[in-house]
């Protein structure tokens, strides 16, 4: 069975609410069948608008959206057959859990015994058997969330949209729900488009992540690639922690470039710089820089420890390094690193490969 690579296709989609500002600009996005794709971005970046356009509650100002090869812009939401989980669950408060789940089946005129089977299956999928006769108000937030997920899946849609579904839950519950949703996705193979502003949620759950900012997809790639190889400084900044140096490229050769900072030169990996004289922001993950490097790293500089924050399994150290007083290091909690004291001068080293020279901020 060949997988449809363009199960959902945004083709040059623009969206504007007021005719002045484009909320979504020239969006080009293909989603494969069975994929779990997350739209990640700060609020106002256009990710929810994209989801609403896909669900049919907003119409694209320009361009077309295709679902399984069919243009859907002119199809009303109730005929699209797309399951949806809303931010505040949107369970019908006057119906029992059973009735909530039966709603999509009833409007599709599915016979009762068949519907009952589907409802049972959906409830066991979210391990809520025995809750069918409860009212949503009698359930906890996590249970309501699971009912909402079950309801969006009960009519066997090919595509399920989730709009920040875990936003209202507390941290522990959110984490366990992340795994639960991920397992459901793996088990039934439905295509999921998930919207969130929580990067850890996106990283743990998705096959691919589309990072939105300013109405555009900044980067579309797998979680590891997104974290390890951000293509621009917004993505590097938005995903995970990040140390940056702003400077100017003074030399570029052999897959390395020299970046001139105010006080020194550093070597970096040229990603989006092409030639000499360009302004750049060099991005370095905190865990890629080491204290007192023993092996030969091509960047070794001295910095002064300004702050030490104990985190249990690791210690965060803020260092003033090459004019950047916000340089963060994560030091594993092991005995060899006990000499970290406030005010000490220490040597920091990293490989130029991990220092990505990106577009200037």
């Amino acid at each position: 069975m060949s997988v449809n690579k363009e199960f959902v296709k945004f083709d040059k989609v623009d969206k504007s609410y007021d005719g002045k500002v484009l909320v979504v600009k020239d969006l080009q996005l293909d989603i494969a069948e069975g994929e779990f794709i997350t739209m990640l971005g700060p609020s106002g970046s256009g990710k929810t608008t994209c989801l609403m356009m896909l669900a049919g509650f907003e119409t694209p100002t320009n361009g077309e959206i295709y679902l399984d090869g069919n243009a859907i812009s002119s199809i009303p939401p109730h005929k699209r057959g797309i399951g949806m989980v809303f931010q505040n669950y949107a369970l019908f408060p006057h119906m029992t859990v059973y009735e909530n789940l039966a709603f999509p089946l009833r409007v599709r005129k599915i016979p009762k015994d068949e519907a009952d089977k589907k409802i049972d299956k959906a409830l066991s999928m979210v391990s809520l058997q025995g809750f069918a006769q409860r009212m949503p108000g009698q359930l906890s937030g996590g249970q309501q969330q699971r009912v909402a997920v079950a309801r969006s899946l009960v009519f066997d849609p090919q595509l399920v949209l989730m709009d920040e579904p875990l936003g209202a839950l507390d941290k522990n519950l959110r984490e366990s729900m992340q795994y639960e949703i991920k397992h459901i996705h793996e088990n039934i193979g439905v295509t999921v488009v998930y919207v969130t502003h929580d990067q850890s949620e996106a990283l743990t759950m998705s096959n691919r992540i589309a990072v939105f900012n300013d109405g555009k997809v900044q980067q579309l790639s797998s979680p590891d690639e997104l974290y390890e190889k951000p293509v621009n400084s917004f993505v590097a900044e938005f995903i995970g922690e990040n140390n940056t140096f702003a400077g100017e490229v003074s030399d570029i050769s052999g897959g390395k470039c020299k970046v001139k900072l105010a006080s020194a030169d550093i070597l970096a990996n040229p990603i989006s710089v092409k030639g000499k004289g360009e302004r750049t922001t060099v991005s370095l993950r905190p865990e890629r820089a080491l204290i007192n490097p023993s092996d030969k790293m091509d960047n070794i500089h001295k910095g002064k420890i300004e702050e030490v924050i104990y985190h249990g399994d690791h210690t965060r150290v803020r260092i003033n390094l090459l004019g950047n007083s916000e340089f963060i290091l994560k030091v594993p909690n092991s005995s060899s690193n006990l000499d970290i004291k406030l005010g000490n001068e220490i040597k920091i080293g990293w490989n130029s490969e991990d220092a990505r020279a990106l577009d200037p901020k």
Partner: protein
Amino acid sequence: MSSETKQILTTDGIPLEVSLKKAEKKNKIKAFLLVAPLLLFIIITYVFPIGDMLMRSVDDKMVTEMLPKTFKSMEKWDGQDLPPEEVFEAFYFDFQKLIEEEREGKLSTQLNYTKNGFKSIIKKLRRKSKSFEEGNYKEQIMSVHRRWADVEYWRAIKRRAPAYTYQKYLKGIDMYENEKGEIINVPEDRRVHRILWMRTLEIAFFVTVFCFLMAYPIAHLLATLPMKYSNLLMICVLLPFWTSLLVRTASWMILLQQQGIVNDFFVMIGLVSDDNRLEMMFNKTGSYVAMTQILLPFMVLPLYSVMKTISPSLMRAGKSLGGTPFVAFWKVYFPLTIPGIGAGCLLVFILAIGYYITPALVGGASGTLISNQIAFHMKSTLDWSFASAMGLMLLSGVLVIYWLYNKLVGIDNIKLG
């Protein structure tokens, strides 16, 4: 359990429960004192007048006090044949006392309510009784007029003996108690109150329906529009509250009269001919139009307050799950607005059922309600007890509606804002 057997003590040895009660007592007194003025106000302005009204509607002491001896002597009379001499004697002495106090006119009015024909024979008795001799009053009174020899009239007097009566209530539904004590309908051509009751219910019902039909979309719009537009719309809804009721009703008179703006417009667009202008005032139409407009905010506000709390994502969820917009509305949105509908309908219906000024001004003969009849008896006929009786019937009608509503929808399900 240990907590049941062992009493918990505070540090100074007093049982915790006692200590708590002592501490709470002060708060309770404070709370009571805070509501006391209002409680007093309600008792003086609401409970007391209504109690007085209730008493007035069943009070029939007037005749009882005017003929004390007569009624006492009548106790032994079986009402079959003419009463014995002692009754006539007692009646004579009661009557003489009334003549001295110049109250015999009132007696004749009162007895005439019970049976027609008392007025003239009392007048005649007053004239003739001056020359009565002592003893054998039966013969003397009976010779004044042949009706005094008719047992029916004595029975009529006896019927006024009790100090309390429910006659006024019977009259309120066009019934009365005849000489034999049977409760029967008044003749068809004299039934006015039942028509009024039915009309009151009918107008209140349709005004409620019209208000609901008009208010629902407005309230929905109010709840879903962006703030800056919804505020403006809200002011439009509330604007009538800031205008005097009388002014609003009067402006409807200007609009609806035969030479009024609405008729002018209909003539202009050729809907009706100039010599055949519509009668929209001094009939039911006038009451419907004006009352609907005046009571509309009372429907809009409860609906709005309920709709405001319904998340728009519920309708979206309904649609995304495959419901057509109508199904999503009917199965999801509408059931959630029922508390508001209940509150609004109850409010409008109860207000409409007792509406007075508007129907009095624009209702005409066929558009007046029971409250106008009550006012009529308060001001014109001065039959306050009848007015009270009808007022209480109206009140109990409202309570019945409230009870029905509670049975059908549940009063906890109501939401006024």
